[in-house]
């Protein structure tokens, strides 16, 4: 039972085991999560999460330990692979399955006493009883003998990948359909109830609506559900187009009223049809022609002028030739008036000798004044007049007002693709009002200088300090180690606080603006470059140091003549690389008050001015790409 193999350090054994255990801990967590998600919330009438009872925890711990142990005994586990370990039988050959199983079982049964064996450096029971041993594996044997996917490594990789995607999908609330939903236009409707409307009467409704677009069509329909048995159901809809930037006339047929008409007189009777034309727009119209058409016959009348919101009444002498007979009135048949909406100019009336019936029409739609300064999204009140032009009363019905806005997302993309460079050279008045002369070019220069200043300052600070953060320079006495620890601690802590967080802190400290941004960039640059520099100093060839010491050089001369010449090229490369990062970072720290081109970017974004956002983004891309190219080229030259 003599175990002559070189003992595997306990630390390595434990670390590699811990990694395997961690994997199964992760799986256990995921299983709990999935249980909660799919089972408990569906099958249990109880809101809340699945919590383990007290006795559940030991089970989870034991289960995960067991799984890890099985993985380690039956094949080559992740942890064993990472630390380059392998299970072999005492003879050095591949262990048989029986041996592997024995290893796992004995291990499981003896877990509690394992630490004692390990500490006392006794051969571990499961190794002795199974005749196997965990040994450092030569690197070359890492090549899989079987197809890669059939090894434990392959199976676990695929499983963990799928498992992670599944869990992550749920936890991060991935919602792919919304990507497409948000591209579709959005429709809004408002219903107003009308309890009753007598024959020949009209009622006025006020509909609150929103002007979602600069130019928007509102459609109003009487009785959209078809509850009323009308004599004519195709004339129930009317529309109005509101245009924020243009004040135009809009002619509609408000009413078509048959006068001195009697059902008992039958066909052939002459009578008059009164057509009321309203200009529902705010601007004046005229001259134009109004036509009344029935069958092949058309009667035209001229209107010389019709002021905004006013109506004019025209009478046409006609003869009833058939039943039912359709009369269509059209305002501005010659299309002489520049209207805001030229598609809402016709209305019709159906006369029927046989049956009486109600006939709902939308007479006119007018709107409260628009305020161009308020822009899109402002509230607007529509005044809708509904008339029953039929021969019978109409029961309860609704009047539906609807409008459609194009998807904000589509609009954003359209505008982004259509960049607006108006303020590239010329300062944007939005900022001029605040006493700032911000044009894209202007701020872009500011941004580049912020990055440059931060890089230069950061490098100048980091350079001397980085030597204090290098083990091979400082590790000569206790004081040196203390300084080393402090400096490295500073680098690590300050580096892990992102620039954007530093910018928020400095924006509070010194106020919003470029100074805060430069401070943030500089601090982070010092820490990040300092760490890179220090590591570079640590990785130098110690030979030249020895040589300079041997000729009688002091500690400082060693740094100057043996360390610096070795590290300077990589210091340059790191600095240029950092310059890259700083340029990119400086374009966005304005988000938290760091100043620079982001000031424009985020204002435009907040205002939904995507065209301007597009212009700024294009400029940023060009500058970042240029800087990247330049620094890349310089780096190539140096190393």
């Amino acid at each position, binding site marked *: 039972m003599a175990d002559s193999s070189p003992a595997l350090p306990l630390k390595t054994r434990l670390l590699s085991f811990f990694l395997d255990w961690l994997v199964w801990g992760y799986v256990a967590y995921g299983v709990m999560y999935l249980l909660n998600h799919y089972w408990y919330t569906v099958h249990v009438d109880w809101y809340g999460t699945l919590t383990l009872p007290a006795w559940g925890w030991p089970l989870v711990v034991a289960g995960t330990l067991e799984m890890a142990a099985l993985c380690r005994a039956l094949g080559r586990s992740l942890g064993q692979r990472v630390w380059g370990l392998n299970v072999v039988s005492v003879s050095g050959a591949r262990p048989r399955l029986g041996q592997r199983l024995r290893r796992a079982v004995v291990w499981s049964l003896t877990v509690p006493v394992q630490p004692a064996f390990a500490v006392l450096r006794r051969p571990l029971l499961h190794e002795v009883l199974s005749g196997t041993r965990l040994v450092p594996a030569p690197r070359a044997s890492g090549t899989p003998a079987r197809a890669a996917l059939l090894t434990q490594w392959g199976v676990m990789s695929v499983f963990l990948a799928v498992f992670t995607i599944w869990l992550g999908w749920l936890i991060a609330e991935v919602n792919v359909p919304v990507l497409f939903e948000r591209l579709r236009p959005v429709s809004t409707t408002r219903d107003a109830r009308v309890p009753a409307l007598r024959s020949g009467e009209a009622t006025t409704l006020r509909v609150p609506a929103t002007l979602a677009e600069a130019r928007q069509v509102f459609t109003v329909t009487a009785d959209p559900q078809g509850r009323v048995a009308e004599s004519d159901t195709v004339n129930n809809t009317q529309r109005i187009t509101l245009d924020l930037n243009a004040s135009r006339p809009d002619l509609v047929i408000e009413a078509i009223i048959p006068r001195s008409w009697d059902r008992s007189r039958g066909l052939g009777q002459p009578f008059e049809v009164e057509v009321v034309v309203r200009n529902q727009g705010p601007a004046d119209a005229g001259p134009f022609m109004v036509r009344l058409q029935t069958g092949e016959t058309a009667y035209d009348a001229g209107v010389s002028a019709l002021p905004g919101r006013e109506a004019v009444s025209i009478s046409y002498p006609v003869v009833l030739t058939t039943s039912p007979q359709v009369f269509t009135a059209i305002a501005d048949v010659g299309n002489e008036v520049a209207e805001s909406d030229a598609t809402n100019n016709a209305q019709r009336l159906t006369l029927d000798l046989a049956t009486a019936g109600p006939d709902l029409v939308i007479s006119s739609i007018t709107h409260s004044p628009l305020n161009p300064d308020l822009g899109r999204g402002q509230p607007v009140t529509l005044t809708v007049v509904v008339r029953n032009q039929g021969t019978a009363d109409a029961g309860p019905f609704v009047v539906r007002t609807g409008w459609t806005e194009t998807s904000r997302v589509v609009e954003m993309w359209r505008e982004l693709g259509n960049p607006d460079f108006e303020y590239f050279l010329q300062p944007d008045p939005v900022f001029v009002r605040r006493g700032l002369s911000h044009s894209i070019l202007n701020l872009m220069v500011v941004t580049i200088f912020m990055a440059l200043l931060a890089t230069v300052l950061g490098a100048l600070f980091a350079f001397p300090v980085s030597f204090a953060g290098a083990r091979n320079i400082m590790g000569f006495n206790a004081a040196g180690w203390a300084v080393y620890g402090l400096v490295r601690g500073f680098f690590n802590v300050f580096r892990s606080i992102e620039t954007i967080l530093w910018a928020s802190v400095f924006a509070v400290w010194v106020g919003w603006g470029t100074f805060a941004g430069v401070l943030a960039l500089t601090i982070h640059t010092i820490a990040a470059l300092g760490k890179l520099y220090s590591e570079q100093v640590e990785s130098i*060839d110690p*030979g*030249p140091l*020895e*040589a*300079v*010491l*041997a*000729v*009688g*050089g*002091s500690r*400082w*001369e060693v740094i*100057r*003549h*043996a360390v610096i*010449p*070795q590290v*300077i*090229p990589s210091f340059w490369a790191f600095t240029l690389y950092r310059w890259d990062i700083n340029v990119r970072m400086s374009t966005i720290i304005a988000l938290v008050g760091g100043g620079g081109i982001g000031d424009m970017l985020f204002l435009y974004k907040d205002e939904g001015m995507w065209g301007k956002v597009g212009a700024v983004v294009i400029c940023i891309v060009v500058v970042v790409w240029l800087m990247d190219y330049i620094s890349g080229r310089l780096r190539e030259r140096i190393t």
Partner: protein
Amino acid sequence: MTDAYLRIEDLTKVYERGQVVALRDLSFTVAKGEFLVVIGLSGSGKSTLLRCINRLIEPTRGKIVLDGVEITGLSPSRMRRVRRRIGMIFQQFNLIRRSTVIANTLTGRLGYMPTWKAMIGLFSQDDRERALENLARVGLREKAYVRADELSGGQQQRVGIARALMQDPELLLADEPVSALDPATSHSIMQYLEWMNRERGVTVLASLHFLSLARRYGTRIIALKDGQLVFDGPPKLIDNAKFKEIYGEDAEEVEVR
């Protein structure tokens, strides 16, 4: 024994890490002008011994007296003044690979310069001329402005020699100066050391792997085994038995021509 140039008494070095005793109560003297070759197996303590002499490694115990001055107790600044007269040549040359040959050579003067001049790299015109002269001496005058890593191994070691020459050394420590080089180049390097020893009167302590080289160039040989002195005498006294004692029973002498 007051006429000894270098006297080593009971020198012991214990590396704290691993508790390795690299040198064990080592005592010997070196007269001025000697070419002393240190031989011994790998791990016998040759490098440790040479580095203790200029205190690149701090001895654990014992005394080193150089030219009547006890080195072991010197303050760092006094030690630096001593070091500038001790040249050192390394197995791996220890050049700054990215710097030019002349820049590497000039570092040999650092011990003679005020610190502020050293820090801004302000070498005097005199130093520069001396550097070119020394490079010419080792046959590298035309390579002065070439980067060190563009030279061959033998050429790099010659830069190391030029750097040591810059110090005007009285003593030269050479730690396996030729074990990274091929036999022909080895001889050329050893001849430079021999020249320094004969023409310049520099006392040389060189550790070598090959006994043939030790015999050819050394005026005296000492042999170390496990940090202890197992031989001290002229080269011709090393016979086959002695050789087996130093290098072990299985060793076979190979010759470098």
